[in-house]
């Protein structure tokens, strides 16, 4: 296929598009963003269908393995051990990559990483690069940085392509366009493909096969022309300096093998010590992620091989807040994440809000604990994320590396609650703590509530309306349990037993008196 399939001026249009790319900056706090999403019935339908399908697939293939819990424990242990000695393994990785003919660059933050990558691309003289799906480059907004330097990054993962063409934001770790259905995708292809390269064929339907074929034709031309590729990596093996990418479509394999220069941006937590450690994750990841026993493509490469594949390889090791996360004893478990997205697919909150409400490339339960740790909780948006969960624990249950997400959420809530602000809540919690701090105070509060039981309205004004807008409040009983117990409960002895003790005091100075 020849480049003249593309419409005239496609390069310029793409550059304009790329420069104006949507961003997660300045997003609304979670509750407000979620309110919009919950009201979008099309979105809820798309998400419900997609998450349920993948959830069931995962459950089935995980259920096939008798040793799943042992594998999960092994995955957790390998990651924990690696994170404990991260500096050692990173140095080992650097030495191995260098020995294999690659070059290693260290980036402390997003700006540094973007600068390094931009410089590397510029040095090749190219202005187009192809990209393998990568969370790290999304995190640092690499495409936008490249666009500012006049370099266009072309996403080649099908779902990333859909997001890029529609100037949208990813809403899922694995399936960034999960919020779109087939009809919407057809529209996007029909209206936008031409501006980025090969146009969609006339009369494109919304049959998945036709859509995939349109993407294939659009992308193939791009693969053949591009001389620079940018990727991330799922794992980096320290012992041998080998990068590992798991994928389903084969686009990654094209990007990783066809171009002359390959640049991989990899978070420092992606390192695993050895190939036998890698083995554990190659079992955990596909089953948790796409619900497959094995993913269709696993690409591994070690430095450069003369005459075979890219002749120049750069590894950019990205910190961007990870060292801070590592310093937090409770929060550091988030660095075990292998980005499988099982926690998103099972999450009842994610299912109803979608990913955009989380205001980050990392949505869902993992995003709710990772984003506030990477970016801090100073702004209202990040501070709202630890509360974006009912703490139901489904995420923890499915996580292949046993990240106790509810534990970290509560830990981050502590951090937010301790910050200035939250005054009304602090006062309310303090008052509740005082009432519950003594049984006599609690008893008095209960009697006051019972006395007012007939005048409590069904719908309440102010903050309480958050409950009463959609739910009735329970009727307040005439007397509390403890009042009943004092009146008559304690008096009925068990058959053949001593009369029940009137109760013991547990440290409250008013204990036992009424």
């Amino acid at each position, binding site marked *: 296929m020849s480049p003249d399939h593309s419409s005239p001026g496609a390069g310029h249009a793409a550059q304009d598009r790329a420069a104006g790319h949507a961003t997660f900056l300045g997003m609304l706090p979670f509750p407000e963003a979620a309110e919009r999403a919950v009201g979008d019935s099309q979105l809820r339908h798309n998400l419900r269908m997609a998450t349920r399908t993948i959830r069931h697939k995962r459950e089935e293939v995980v259920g096939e393995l008798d040793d799943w819990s042992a594998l999960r424990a092994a995955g957790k242990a390998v990651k924990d051990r690696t994170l404990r000695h991260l500096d050692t393994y990173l140095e080992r990785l650097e030495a191995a990559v260098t020995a294999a003919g690659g070059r290693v660059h260290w980036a402390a933050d997003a700006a540094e990483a973007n600068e390094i990558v931009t410089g590397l691309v510029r040095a090749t003289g190219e202005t187009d690069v192809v990209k393998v799906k990568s969370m790290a480059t999304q995190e640092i907004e690499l495409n936008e940085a490249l666009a500012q330097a006049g370099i266009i990054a072309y996403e080649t993962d099908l779902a990333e392509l859909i997001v890029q063409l529609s100037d949208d934001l990813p809403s899922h770790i694995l399936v960034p366009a999960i919020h779109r259905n087939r009809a919407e995708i057809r529209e996007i292809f029909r209206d936008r493909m031409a501006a980025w390269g090969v146009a969609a064929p006339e009369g494109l339907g919304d049959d998945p096969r036709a859509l995939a074929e349109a993407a294939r034709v659009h992308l193939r031309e791009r693969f053949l022309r591009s001389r620079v590729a940018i990727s991330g990596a799922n794992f980096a093996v320290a012992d041998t300096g080998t990068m590992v990418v798991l994928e389903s479509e084969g686009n990654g394999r094209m990007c990783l093998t066809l171009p002359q220069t390959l640049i991989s941006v990899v978070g420092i937590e992606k390192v695993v010590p050895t190939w036998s450690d890698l083995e554990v994750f190659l079992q955990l990841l596909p089953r948790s992620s796409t619900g497959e026993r094995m993913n269709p493509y696993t690409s591994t490469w070690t430095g450069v091989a003369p005459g075979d594949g890219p002749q120049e390889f750069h590894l950019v090791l990205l910190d961007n807040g990870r060292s801070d996360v590592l310093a937090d004893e409770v929060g550091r478990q988030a660095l075990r994440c292998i980005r499988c997205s099982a926690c998103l697919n099972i999450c009842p909150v994610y299912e109803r809000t979608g990913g955009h409400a989380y205001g980050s490339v990392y949505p869902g339960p993992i995003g709710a604990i990772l984003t506030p740790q990477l970016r801090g909780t100073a702004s209202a948006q990040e501070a709202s994320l630890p509360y974006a969960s009912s703490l139901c624990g489904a995420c923890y249950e499915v996580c292949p590396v046993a990240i106790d997400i509810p534990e970290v959420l509560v830990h981050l809530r502590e951090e937010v609650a301790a910050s200035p602000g939250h005054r009304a809540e602090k006062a309310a919690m303090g008052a509740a703590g005082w009432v519950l701090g003594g049984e006599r105070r609690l008893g008095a509060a209960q009697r006051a509530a019972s006395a007012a039981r007939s005048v409590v309205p069904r719908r309440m004004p102010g903050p309480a309306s958050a409950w009463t807008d959609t739910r009735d409040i329970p009727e307040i009983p005439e007397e509390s349990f403890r009042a009943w117990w004092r009146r008559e409960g304690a008096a009925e002895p068990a058959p053949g037993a001593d009369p029940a003790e009137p109760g013991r005091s547990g440290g409250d100075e008013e*204990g036992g008196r009424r």
Partner: protein
Amino acid sequence: MRIALFITCVNDTLYPRTGRAVVRLLRRLGHEVVFPEAQTCCGQLHYNTGYRREAQKLAVRFVETFADADAVLAPSGSCAAMVRDNYPRLCAPGSRLDRAAAELAPRVHDLSELLVDVLGVTDVGAYFPHTVTYHPTCHGLRLLKLRDRPYRLLRNVRGIDLRELEGSAECCGFGGTFAMKNADVSAAMAADKARNVAATGAEVLCAVDNSCLMHIGGTLRRQRAGVATVHLAEILASTEQEPARL
């Protein structure tokens, strides 16, 4: 056996009928119930909302109040889970509180655990002639891992018609302050749960946690769905002579 009842603050204040049912049930089974009056709250609300210090104070009170008990019954799955799962996180490792909490934790039970594991009974001689569906609740399911215990107890109730609940493992959307802080998402979750409950055709929704029942029940009542919400204790306490009132 002498069983110390930790009624929990929500049951104490809003659902005394659950407490009375527990007392009736255990006495019928020949056990003694004591109610240490110094008890107030396990601290779950404070802990989950990020108020650790307040939660710690309540944990101290709980541990002191129940330290000598042979068995503690918390007729609320999430409160039992709070003591067993979260108290270790609240205490400085190796502290006096930590040791006392660890020592007490294995003796703290949810109702179905107490009956099945400690008292070794699955047929409590109950009678409840109604169609019932059971919501397992997140903490009962994932933290306490109650598994089939509640079902075994329910299946042995005479007259009961037990219906399976679609999507039972999914959260009802309560989550304590989550229901207020993220009211829209919470309400959407509750609406889906209520729809699944109504679809069973059951007259009664049962659970081991009144907080979840308050949330789902509040939604069902607002929809005038005609489904009553009843704690497991009330079904198990119900007999031909003293049937539960719906």
